[in-house]
């Protein structure tokens, strides 16, 4: 530092001045020049010592030491680039994996709601012993206790509009209460319409949250009255990405399900994080819901539970008091009187949940798996630390002589520790920096993977923020100290004399204790790699089996996409829908590269299914059977290549007639389970619990899997499809994705207001339903290979260190005529034995735990011997290679050089 130099010189000048003054004084007392000078110097004492004391007293001393250490460490690390690269890469993978998972957790679970005082916001949730007797009842994914489907007592976050008004009247505990409902709608600002997710919100939604508009205004109380001018607020994200941040959209008209709304504002740039990960692109006043969606529940109906309530607690009011006041009002009004939806002994209760972090639909869905993943990557990081610690330990043995010299010339022990720790921290800092890069890539692809496989659109923002940088920094420091401290302490505790007496550069011996530790680390790494690789192998085979599983129809070369006619203003069962479906079918079938086209209500193997009930005519209505149901268009079985077993498939006439029983096609399982060996053709069935015959069987087709590829085919009924929402299936001659733009044009020509949803191939659709298996298989394969790489590095290091240490001995043996093979065996034996122990232990442990994977596996047993054998062989080969390379170096030792070494 410049500052240090100046002051130091200044100090020396001052001392010089002192000595001159003293000399002058002594000369006045009559001493000669020489005598005076000598006396003055004597009186001063040791000048250098004074200068040193001055130097050490300065506050910047640690900075100088740090600079020295950093420079020295850089030199040392540059001298062994292989070691440095391996350590940095190992740490980068470990830190990167942790940071990636952390940034996902951060995105869905840790960010605070971007509004003032979010800790005052509470979401209302009710619980009761029985389901409510409601006309309409919505469960909301953002509800803190999950969907409530698996819980003993029903719970939800939905309330009726009259309840909202009641809660709003509690002005002494709440400073504001807002309500909202999530919905999607066909929104068109300019160009073609898009299906967007948005919210209907009460007039005080934005003011209670304290959210401001980026441009224009937000919604207010005057917008939320019936008869007000219909207005819409758009999200910043939508405005930026779809409208190109064009400020002139303000005041323009957008259509929502074809109804005009005036655009009055754009929300602030961070407001879309209201429900982290779930995009909200528009906000409409609650009062306008009846305009957009005529089927929406009435605002006055106390039996429709559809609104979510968020309340802002008044300053100084306790949550318990607010809950007491809420229940004092909620319990009597819902258990008695005309608005009763519960019985008195259902014990309904409202609980307030803090909504400071937003609504977190994703938190409830992904937080647990993410924390499990976090644990897994934490283990990987520990493994990486153990590995690096092993490498450092071996290295510190090789550097014993250096340490001894430094000790002998007077370096304090803490200075040596400090220097070695600086080295470790530099390695971990480099690893952390590279790790952040890995983390960004990893988190992005993980987020993309999750949203590609999700049924609702996701928008997980995994951008780097201070949380993530801080996390990576802390992890790097902890890791650096963790793996660096033990070797550093050991390195500093050297006995100088015996080491310096030995003249050989590598003669330092590793103490027994740390040699044992090194061996245990290597064996543990082999065991863990076996474990993870066996899991990866089993899951990999599962994924292959699932992808090759017979679905009952041909899954290749099949393009699927939904066509939504909502925006064209058609009612859900408009008779024109059937005609439009068939017009689309004809146009699509005529496209080049398409061999046939058909449609159904929902795609096959998409993870969802429709079901229904029926009973045989004459049988009591209590003896209902349940069956899977799918409505399909003409030519569906031909397009999907589902074989016809008996009778016929649907014809055009089946879609047009509405008199008499509905013609249906059933699958083989249905025919066998319902009719046994009797001929099912022409038989009549009664749908649900009614008494009129409404189904007549016209044909039997082969079994197909319906809900997902894992589930065996169930009894299924196919009915004619004539509704507003269809999923089209195109059998193509070549790559299905190649004709997507042609398909878009064809759909647009039938009606520009139709929009296509979820365009994907049947194979992609199947992949989506098995994403968990794929994710776990891919991640465990990655982690397994990582563990294998780490273990190999560990083995390599161990054997290489042994060779270096025994160079002299090898030289003697070779001089005495030992064979090269013998030397090879001598040096590699140790590593090979450790490998064998690790492999045997690993296989044993794996055999003990793979049954936990049972529920994930498909077509492969947890103790699949083929997988176990392959992994054992793979690992042994790589481990042998890792031992062989350094051992071969031992055979190249020149006896003369080795002996002169001493």
């Amino acid at each position: 530092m410049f500052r240090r130099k100046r002051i130091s010189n200044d100090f020396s000048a001052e001392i010089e001045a002192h000595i001159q003054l003293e000399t002058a004084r002594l000369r006045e007392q009559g001493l000669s020049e020489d005598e005076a000078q000598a006396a003055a110097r004597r009186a001063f004492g040791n000048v250098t010592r004074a200068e040193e004391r001055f130097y050490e007293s300065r506050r910047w001393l640690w900075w100088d030491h740090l600079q020295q250490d950093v420079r020295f460490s850089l030199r040392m690390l540059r001298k062994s680039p292989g070691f440095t690269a391996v350590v940095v890469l190992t740490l980068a993978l470990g830190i990167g994996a942790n940071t990636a998972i952390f940034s996902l957790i951060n995105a869905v679970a840790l960010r605070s709601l971007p509004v003032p005082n979010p800790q005052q916001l509470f979401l209302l949730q009710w619980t009761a012993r029985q389901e409510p007797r409601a006309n309409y009842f919505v469960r909301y994914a953002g509800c803190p206790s999950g969907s409530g489907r698996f819980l003993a007592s029903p719970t939800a976050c939905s309330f009726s509009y009259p309840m909202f008004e009641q809660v709003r009247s509690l002005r002494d505990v709440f400073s504001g209460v807002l309500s909202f409902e999530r919905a999607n709608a066909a929104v068109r600002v300019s160009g073609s319409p898009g299906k967007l997710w948005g919210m209907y919100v009460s007039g005080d939604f934005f003011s209670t949250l304290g959210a401001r508009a980026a441009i224009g205004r937000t919604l207010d109380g005057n917008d939320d009255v019936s008869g007000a001018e219909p207005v819409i607020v758009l999200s910043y994200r939508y405005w930026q990405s779809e409208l190109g941040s064009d400020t002139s959209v303000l005041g323009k008209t957008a259509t929502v399900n074809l109804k005009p709304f005036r655009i009055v504002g754009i929300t602030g740039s961070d407001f879309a994080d209201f429900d982290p990960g779930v995009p909200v692109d528009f906000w409409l006043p609650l009062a306008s819901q009846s305009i957009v969606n005529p089927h929406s529940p009435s605002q006055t109906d106390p039996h429709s539970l559809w609104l979510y309530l968020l309340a802002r607690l008044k300053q100084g009011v306790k949550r318990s008091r607010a809950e007491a006041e809420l229940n004092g009002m909620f319990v009597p009004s819902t258990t008695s009187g005309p608005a009763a939806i519960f019985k008195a002994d259902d014990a309904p209760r409202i609980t307030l949940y803090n909504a400071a972090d937003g609504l977190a639909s994703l938190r409830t869905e992904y937080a647990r798996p993410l924390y499990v993943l976090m644990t897994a990557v934490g283990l990987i990081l520990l493994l990486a630390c153990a590995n690096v610690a092993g490498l450092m330990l071996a290295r510190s043995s090789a550097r014993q002589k250096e340490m001894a010299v430094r000790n002998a010339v007077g370096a304090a022990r803490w200075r040596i520790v400090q220097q070695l720790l600086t080295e470790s921290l530099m390695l971990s800092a480099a690893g952390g920096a590279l790790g952040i890069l890995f983390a960004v890539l990893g988190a992005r692809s993980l987020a993309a993977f999750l949203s590609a496989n999700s049924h609702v659109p996701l928008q997980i923002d995994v951008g780097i923020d201070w949380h993530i940088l801080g996390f990576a920094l802390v992890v790097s420091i902890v890791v650096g100290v963790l793996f660096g401290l033990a070797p550093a302490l050991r390195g500093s505790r050297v006995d100088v004399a015996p080491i310096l007496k030995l003249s050989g550069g590598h003669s330092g011996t590793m103490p027994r204790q740390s040699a044992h530790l090194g061996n245990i680390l290597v064996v543990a790494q082999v065991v863990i790699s076996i474990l993870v690789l066996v899991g990866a192998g089993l899951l990999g085979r599962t994924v292959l089996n699932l992808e090759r599983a017979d679905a009952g129809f041909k899954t290749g070369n099949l393009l699927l996409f939904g066509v939504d006619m909502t925006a064209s203003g058609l009612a859900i069962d408009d008779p024109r829908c059937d005609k439009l479906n068939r017009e689309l079918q004809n146009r699509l079938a005529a496209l080049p590269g398409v061999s046939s086209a058909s449609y159904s209500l929902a795609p096959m193997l998409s993870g969802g299914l429709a079901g229904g009930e029926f009973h045989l005519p004459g049988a009591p209505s209590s003896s209902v059977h349940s069956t899977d149901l799918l409505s399909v268009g003409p030519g569906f079985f031909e397009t999907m290549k589902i074989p016809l077993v008996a009778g016929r498939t649907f014809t055009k006439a089946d879609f047009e007639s509405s008199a008499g029983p509905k013609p249906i096609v059933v699958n083989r399982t249905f025919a066998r389970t319902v009719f046994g060996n009797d001929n099912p053709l022409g038989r009549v069935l009664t749908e649900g619990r009614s008494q009129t015959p409404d189904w007549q069987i016209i044909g039997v087709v082969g079994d197909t899997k319906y809900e997902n590829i894992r589930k065996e085919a169930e009894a299924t009924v196919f009915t004619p499809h004539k509704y507003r929402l269809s999923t089209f299936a195109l059998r193509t001659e070549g790559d299905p994705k190649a004709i997507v733009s042609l398909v878009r044009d064809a759909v647009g020509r039938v009606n520009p207001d139709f929009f296509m949803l979820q365009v994907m191939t049947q194979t992609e659709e199947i992949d989506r339903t098995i994403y968990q298996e794929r994710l776990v298989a891919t991640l465990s394969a990655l982690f397994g290979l990582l563990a294998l790489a780490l273990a190999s590095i560990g083995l390599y290091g161990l054997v290489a260190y042994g060779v270096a240490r025994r160079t002299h001995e090898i030289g003697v043996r070779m001089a005495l005529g030992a064979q090269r093979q013998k030397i090879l065996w001598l040096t590699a034996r140790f590593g090979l034995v450790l490998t064998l122990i690790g492999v045997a232990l690993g296989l044993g442990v794996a055999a003990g735990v793979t049954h936990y994977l049972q529920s994930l596996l498909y077509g492969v047993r947890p103790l699949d011997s083929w997988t176990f054998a392959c992994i054992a062989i793979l690992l042994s080969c790589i481990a042998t290679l890792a031992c062989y390379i350094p051992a071969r170096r031992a055979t190249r030792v020149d006896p003369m050089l080795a002996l002169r070494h001493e």
Partner: protein
Amino acid sequence: MSTQEAKARLELLQGTLHLLILRTLIFGSQHGQGIARAIQQTSEEELLVEHGALYPALQRLEERGWISAKWGTSANNRKARFYSLTLAGRKQLVKETTKWKRLAAAIGRILGSQTKRS
């Protein structure tokens, strides 16, 4: 100054050098050599100030903000670094003087009573 001479003088107690420097500077700014001289003379040559130890002590006092320094010219026209008391240093001096007097008195009482008893 012979070794015998030096042995006859009292070595400074730990931490008292600060107090003496501050006290010396109360008469106006002075350079290091002058401070050393002054301490020796006012103590009637009883105290030994190792000149080498003086400068690091001056440096510490300067860092604490009790004294300030600038280069100037000495009476016999030589360049020297002159130290002077700051306001904070003046306060510190009062504080330490009180402390020291109480300490000296207390120790004196104990030692005095012991002498009486024996």
